[in-house]
């Protein structure tokens, strides 16, 4: 057993260098001012004040959250029936269907988005917001379907039989048995869709035709163009906090659902 523990050292080292260290640097940058000289450190909350006191930035944050939220809801609305349908197929067909759904996930996201861009160029009248949603839902839907499908497939079929025996019709059995028991699947689907969707900026950038400034674009802009690493770090940190909070709440809902 001890030898297995040792085998995790490379991974811990990896995490330390590429995840923890950058996080600490972001933290340091976010609370300081004046980028390039690290010799004198002035701690300040200025960067955060600047972000939260600015109505334009708040709107950008709101837009990012809104787009991610709608994407997630649409993914559930399309993904749940799809997952339910697949779960009710015979075993071998299920494997095939899941394979078909996984297939596009193997293709690079940028490539898929460029393909969508080519297709959507032909629809002049479609608003850029709809185009963004099409691209986002297309990209994130498989994650949702697979998570929900796994939860439903795990379900004990006897429970449904029992429910029918007790006089519940199909719809009622679904509401009382299948749906509550598949909530953990929905929750992990939400984690896999909502969180990356908040910070996604390539899809809105490519499909939104440059009419969208989202939080990811802001961060990129302040780091690469403006060279203001402090403010960029502050926005990144705010994003990280939102994501952590979102994860905390989904966990909580998940646990509450399990206890029921």
């Amino acid at each position, binding site marked *: 057993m001890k030898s297995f523990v040792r085998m995790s050292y490379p991974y811990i080292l990896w995490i330390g260098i590429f995840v923890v260290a950058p996080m600490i640097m972001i933290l340091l940058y976010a609370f300081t001012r004046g980028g*390039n000289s690290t010799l004198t450190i002035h701690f300040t909350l200025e960067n955060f004040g600047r972000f939260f006191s*600015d109505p*334009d*930035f708040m*709107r*950008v944050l709101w837009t990012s959250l809104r787009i991610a939220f709608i994407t997630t809801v649409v993914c559930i609305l399309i993904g749940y029936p799809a997952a339910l349908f697949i779960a009710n197929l015979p075993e071998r067909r299920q494997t095939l269907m899941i394979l078909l759904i996984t297939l596009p996930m193997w293709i690079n996201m940028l490539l898929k988005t460029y393909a969508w861009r080519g297709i959507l*160029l032909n629809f002049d009248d479609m608003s850029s917001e709809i185009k963004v949603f099409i691209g986002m839902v297309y990209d994130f839907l498989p994650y949702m379907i697979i998570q929900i499908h796994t939860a439903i497939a795990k379900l004990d079929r006897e429970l449904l039989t029992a429910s029918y025996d007790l006089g519940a019709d199909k719809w009622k059995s679904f509401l009382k048995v299948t749906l509550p028991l598949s909530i953990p699947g929905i929750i992990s689907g939400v984690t896999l869709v909502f969180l990356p969707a908040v910070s996604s900026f390539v899809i809105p950038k490519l499909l939104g*035709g*440059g*009419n969208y*400034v989202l939080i990811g674009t*802001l961060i990129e*802009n*302040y*780091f*690469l*163009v*403006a*060279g*203001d690493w402090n403010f960029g770090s502050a926005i990144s940190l705010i994003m990280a906090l939102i994501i952590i909070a979102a994860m905390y709440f989904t966990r909580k809902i998940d646990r509450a659902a399990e206890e029921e």
Partner: protein
Amino acid sequence: MKKILSALMALVLVSLVFPVLAGAEDVVEDFHGAVLNVFNWGSYIDEDEQVLESFKKKYNCEINYKNYDSNETLYTKLLGGDDPWDILVPSDYMIERLIKEKRLQPLDKSIIDNLDNLAEPVRNLAFDPDNTYSVPYLWQSVGIVYDTTKLDPALVEEKGWEIFLDPSIKGHAYMYDSARDAFMIALKSLGYSANSENLEEIDAANEWLLNMHRTIDPSYVTDEMIDGMAEGLKWISLGYSGDIAYIISENEDMAFCAPWQGTNIAVDAMVIPANAGNPRLANLFIRHVTEYESSLLISDYTGYASPNAQVLEELYGPGGTYEGNSAYMPRAGYAADEIYVDLPDLAGELNHRWTKVMAAQ
């Protein structure tokens, strides 16, 4: 069968040996496979990188060729990483800053002895009057490209930059996502200098840009405007003359306008960072690129104006690739046109304000 095989083998052997021999003859000076690190703008060299290939052969070296997409990215990378670049191609104002911060080394004029052929407009430039640190690579102006089937040329010429405040182009315009250029058109439109540091003027320009944002709701893009305009997806865009020369050569409905209010003339020039790993090879590279053949290949492919007088004549003149293509040849000597001056204290502020314009409702 055996005979055929051996004949084939002989052919293969000959073809293997010959290029080596041919290559060996061309070597001017042997650098034994040393690596030259070149950091240049994206799609800013000839199509097949012939210019690099011939240099590699001439000096038996390797080239590590990387791209950046803005002066600010270049600067950030230069600060952030410790990759020792040998050649950079920043624009005028960024060169000025790099000189001021002592990040460049003087060029070796005993190697770069071919500067007599520089075209008149790119001689004695304010940021480096005697080419101590830099040799022009390509130059251009900022202008308007528009679809003549959608917009009346007389109207665009008459309005100049003000066309970007015209409600009739709402939803049909690209705006180049560059803080400095955006503020330039606003400042010029209001009759101020593109290098203004006067906060009142900058506030006014900021208002102008917000007004533009609300009136025409442009798509903020960078190089996407090149294909977009070539395909006629939008009616009008801000752009760089070289890109516009290309767009016009692809789509003849498109036309170029150099606004009467004046614009920015930009010169991108080759420089050698102070910490370059291989200065001698870098100086040789600058000389190589400045020669007629290389300069012709680069300017011909990119559509940007060559700093080499002979090449300019060749490409713009009768029978040249850009014969009569007004976007290829930046107007020279127009009093209202300006080269950017480095504004270190203002750069962050302009970027911040520009980001807010794009994010505004």
